[in-house]
């Protein structure tokens, strides 16, 4: 009923124009019957009609006004109905909100994990060495699967004994939380995630530093000056992208090291995790900071 009423009100502009034409013809015919010439009759009909274009304009305007009017009516009706059924409205709004929210969250994750390629130069040439899918485990029940850890010495042997593999880098299978502060400033030490890696770690991924440099092979030698690469995220959020960070000294548990470079923006390390490293150190530094050294590698 409601729908019928509304559709019947709709009328095309072409239909309206046809009516105006029909009017002019009827009027002209009548003038001719009164004895006017063809041309005179039509001109006269137009004159008595007035402005045709303006009539058409007014038709369109009135139609638009009608449409807006109906829209306003419908909206008011909808709001009244919502107000009437508060519980129903609440459930609908909550359902939609949850649905949209969950979809957004899932898409964000899927987009990051599946659609965006790894921020490395040739991801198809990367392989992780180890038994099974369990990476980077140190403890815990592994449900019948082995987890592979390699000693640093074994890594070196494998790296040097496999010329067919272009490059092999090692990384620490777990992250450590360390208290670090910038030397020579009044700032308090803050907790940062750290990871120890072999000196060729960044070259393996084919990425370029956002600032400064990555490690050189000499950084892996025992007794070399301790250095670190800072993540782009830590550089931006903790140090306001201060270019002075590169080359400046920091203290980790009271021992000094130098930040030599900043990793590129999208690089969060070799493993997808919710707490990516803020600092990467060469393997040799680990001994300096007096920790037991065991490493997995890629």
């Amino acid at each position, binding site marked *: 009923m409601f729908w019928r009423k509304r559709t019947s009100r709709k009328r095309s502009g072409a239909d309206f124009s046809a009516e105006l034409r029909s*009017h002019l013809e*009827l009027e002209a015919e009548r003038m001719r019957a009164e004895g006017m010439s063809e041309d005179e009759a039509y001109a006269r009909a137009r004159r008595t*009609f007035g402005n045709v274009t303006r009539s058409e304009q007014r038709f369109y305007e009135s139609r638009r006004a009608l449409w807006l009017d109906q829209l306003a009516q419908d909206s008011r009706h909808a709001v009244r109905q919502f107000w009437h059924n508060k519980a129903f409205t609440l459930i609908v709004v909550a359902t939609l909100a949850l649905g949209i929210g969950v979809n957004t969250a899932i898409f964000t994750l899927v987009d990051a994990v599946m659609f965006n390629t790894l921020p490395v130069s040739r991801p198809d040439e990367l392989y992780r060495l180890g038994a099974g899918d369990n990476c980077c485990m140190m403890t815990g029940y592994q449900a019948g699967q082995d987890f592979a850890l390699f000693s640093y010495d074994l890594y070196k042997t494998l790296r040097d004994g496999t010329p067919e593999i272009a490059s092999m880098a090692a990384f620490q299978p777990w992250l450590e939380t360390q208290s670090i502060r910038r030397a020579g400033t009044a700032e308090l030490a803050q907790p940062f995630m750290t990871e120890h890696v072999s000196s060729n770690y960044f070259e393996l991924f084919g990425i370029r530093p956002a600032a400064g440099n990555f490690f050189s092979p000499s950084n892996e030698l025992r007794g070399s000056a301790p250095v670190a690469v800072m993540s782009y995220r830590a550089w931006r959020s903790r140090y306001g992208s201060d270019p002075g960070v590169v080359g400046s000294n920091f203290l980790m548990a009271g021992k000094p090291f130098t930040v030599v470079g900043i990793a590129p923006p999208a690089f969060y390390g070799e493993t997808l995790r919710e707490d990516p490293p803020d600092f990467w150190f060469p393997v040799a530094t680990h001994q300096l900071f007096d920790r037991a050294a065991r490493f997995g590698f890629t």
Partner: protein
Amino acid sequence: MLRRNDRRGHTLGKMSTRDKKSRVALLQGTLDLLILRTLRFGRQHGQGIARAIQEQSEDVLLVEHGALYPALQRLEAQGWITAEWGISSNNRKARFYTLSKQGRKQLVEEANRWRTLANAIGRILGPETQES
């Protein structure tokens, strides 16, 4: 309000200098009443309505034909008249308007209101004078 009257006066009752003495511009709202009244005698197309008003008023009222259509549109939207395409007596396509039941009721109300108003104004003005 005054400005609106002026505008409508201009569109509804355009007068040439020659006609000025004998022809009168329509008051606002009266066109709707006249259309409804014309349709009381049966269905009619726009041109027919315009002619009928002119003739029945003995050429005193001048309706600019173009002004008729927005009014018809308005009445149709109100549901007082309905429209359909048909063939005129001289075999031409035309859109014919018919008075609806609602429109008939509206016509009675409007006509009564108009008579009341005309009577009241007539009483105030008093008997005809020769003043120019």
